[in-house]
């Protein structure tokens, strides 16, 4: 449940919590734990996104446009999986995540992004919008910046998912918040919307491999769903700053966990 709650708020799948909890606390086999985490990512995503989409927190155009990048990236990643050494990749990814934690801290005080006029490309792709912020009590306008950079980062995030079999919600939030300068809540809600699709793309592989065990995944799915539904209600009532505060430890833990995995300490 905690995984669903944090996942819904931070815009990431519950995998970072679900995998260590199952393997360390319950002694579950790592493959079944990863299978359960894929299920939990989709449960978090679908459960929370249902509310976020209805309440205009999710930017569906940004989401669909960037899913073009993540899905093609994921296919390329899956095709390259046998060629690239994963160890080095894990370490690099971990360093990128820890590095971006610094940028994230520097943005901590920023409640809404700067409102410069939208670029030509943003207008043409209709990537300008606004979201209702109940905490601030007003409509907050925004427009996507540095779209090519965001698209490239998303492609990289998809590639990483395909190569390493992870959801990469953290990278998605970083691309939207850090590069495209979308408001933190919109980044989180839109990442939430997208991670289900990324996970679904690889779900068939995990099912076929026998990594999805109802004995493990059924209780996890029910708990995570309950958490995600609570988390999705909470997002309205907290500030962008608080969402950043929830996201920061997730970023650091995932960064360290990823490096540890690359160096051969299995979690």
């Amino acid at each position, binding site marked *: 449940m905690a995984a669903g709650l944090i996942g819904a708020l931070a815009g990431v799948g519950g995998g970072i919590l679900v995998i260590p909890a199952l393997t360390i606390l319950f002694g579950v086999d790592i493959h079944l734990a990863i299978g359960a985490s894929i299920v939990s990512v989709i449960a978090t995503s679908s*459960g929370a996104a249902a509310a976020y989409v*209805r309440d205009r927190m999710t930017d569906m155009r940004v989401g669909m446009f960037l899913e*073009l990048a993540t*899905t093609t990236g994921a296919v390329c990643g899956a095709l390259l999986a046998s060629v690239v050494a994963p160890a080095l990749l894990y370490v690099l990814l971990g360093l990128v995540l820890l590095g971006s934690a610094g940028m994230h801290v520097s943005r901590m005080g920023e409640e809404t992004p700067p409102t410069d006029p939208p670029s030509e490309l943003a207008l043409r792709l209709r990537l300008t919008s606004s979201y209702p912020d109940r905490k601030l009590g007003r409509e907050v306008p925004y427009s996507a910046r540095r779209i090519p950079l965001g698209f490239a980062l998303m492609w990289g995030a998809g590639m990483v998912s395909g190569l390493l079999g992870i959801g990469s919600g953290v990278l998605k939030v970083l691309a939207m918040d850090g590069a495209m300068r979308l408001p933190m809540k919109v980044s989180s809600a839109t990442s939430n919307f997208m991670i289900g699709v990324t996970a*679904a793309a690889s779900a068939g592989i995990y099912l076929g491999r026998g990594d999805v065990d109802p004995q493990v995944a059924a209780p996890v799915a029910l708990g995570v769903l309950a958490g995600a539904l609570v988390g999705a209600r909470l997002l309205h009532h907290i500030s962008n700053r608080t969402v950043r505060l929830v996201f920061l430890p997730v970023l650091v833990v995932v960064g360290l966990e990823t490096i540890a995995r690359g160096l051969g300490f299995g979690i």
Partner: protein
Amino acid sequence: MTPEKFRAMVSTVLIVGVAISAALIGVGFVGALAVGWHGSLVGGAASSGATTDFSNLPGRLATLEPAAISQLGLATLLATPVARVAASVAGFALERDRLYATITLAVLLILLTSIFVLR
């Protein structure tokens, strides 16, 4: 189609997918507590095999095997994001947003390819 209706439709697809899968997973889970994962809720013979084996789902569903009910729920959950993308294609098309209907259709095709072709 207005943007509000579009959002409501996508949201409904997600809620229905989540509700159906949660109900099935829950029934299977409670059933497993009662008769075991491989038992039968209608008193049939217990099946064998691993709970990770999704084969012969219809046959095992016919005897109301808890593992099969939960598996159907898990499969429904995994299919929910795909249904959401498919609903978005229809939504953008009805909004007459050609650009995004095309983008979303491309995402759907890539998604289906990766699920059914790349194994």
